[in-house]
């Protein structure tokens, strides 16, 4: 039973993080298209935001299975 719950939970986490990453990409792409001269700054900030959102999923994957055991 735990296997089911954990798999579902990780799936939900991946869903949310995917939506978050998509939103960041959406915002950054829109900004870059509107202001091509700001691409450098936007890319750097986008990567920072991507890293932080990605960390949420990594924390889920590495910490939740251990704490539920």
């Amino acid at each position, binding site marked *: 039973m735990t*296997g089911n719950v*954990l798999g579902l939970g990780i799936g939900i986490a991946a869903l949310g993080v995917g939506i978050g990453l998509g939103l960041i990409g959406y915002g950054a792409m829109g900004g870059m298209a509107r202001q091509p001269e700001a691409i450098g700054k936007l890319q*750097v900030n986008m*990567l*920072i935001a991507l890293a932080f959102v*990605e*960390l949420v999923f*990594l924390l889920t994957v590495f910490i939740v*299975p251990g704490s539920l055991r």
Partner: protein
Amino acid sequence: MEVWIGTSTSWLAAAGEHGGKEHHGPGFWGLVFYIGLVLAILFGLMSFAKTGLKSRVFTKPTLFGLPVLGAFEQIYLFIEQLCVGTIGAHGRKYVVMIMVFWMLVFFSNLVALFFPTAPTADLSFNLGLALVSIGYVQWEGIKANGLFGHFRHFAGPKLGGMLILISLIIFVIEIISELMKNVSLSLRLYGNIDGGHRAADAMNELGKNIIPLGGDTGLSIPIGAFLMPIKLLTCVVQAMIFCLLTCVYLSLVTHHEDEHHEEGHGQPVPAGAH
């Protein structure tokens, strides 16, 4: 159904570092070997790139047609732009440390493309890197603001009267978040590189199960190889993010109040800017 539950728990257990027979990181002597490999690659390339520097007519040395020195120049320019863009005009003095981090992380990640494991696929190596990085940030903060000024920086804005209790709470929370920076830096790198390995492993298993070429011999199409381009992208991006976050932390602790005044007049305006 039973089978599915069984496999899924074992996979999750593997992700949670408590799996049974699966290998987790290279182990101590494996780590020594891989770090030695990375250092040998780095020092070899750099000593090779250094050969042309003293000759009268400057020629960039190439190795098998690859411009080694040119690559190092490009890395330097990239890191310099990263530092100056993130930290500000005084960020140029941190280029050395950030470049060391970038090259160490990047070449360790590159090893992950060709070998079964890599230094950065081991949590202890990443934690060491993160400790060095955050320790360096604290050292630079103490150098910039003084010991007392650096620790007062943790307590947030100046509050009077009974609100000093809030400052105390903020201080404790800031110290915890400073310690958590180690965890976040190391876990991000470890998760990405080791996750890449696990993904490639899973894809290879998929190929073995779907298209068994050799029957009993276990010959199969290595579908995981198709993950190589995206793993290469991950290598570059993770090395860059590690350095970028170190830069951001540095810019947070070495932030001066007169920074805006300096920036307004110190930066030369590009010709194309309007």
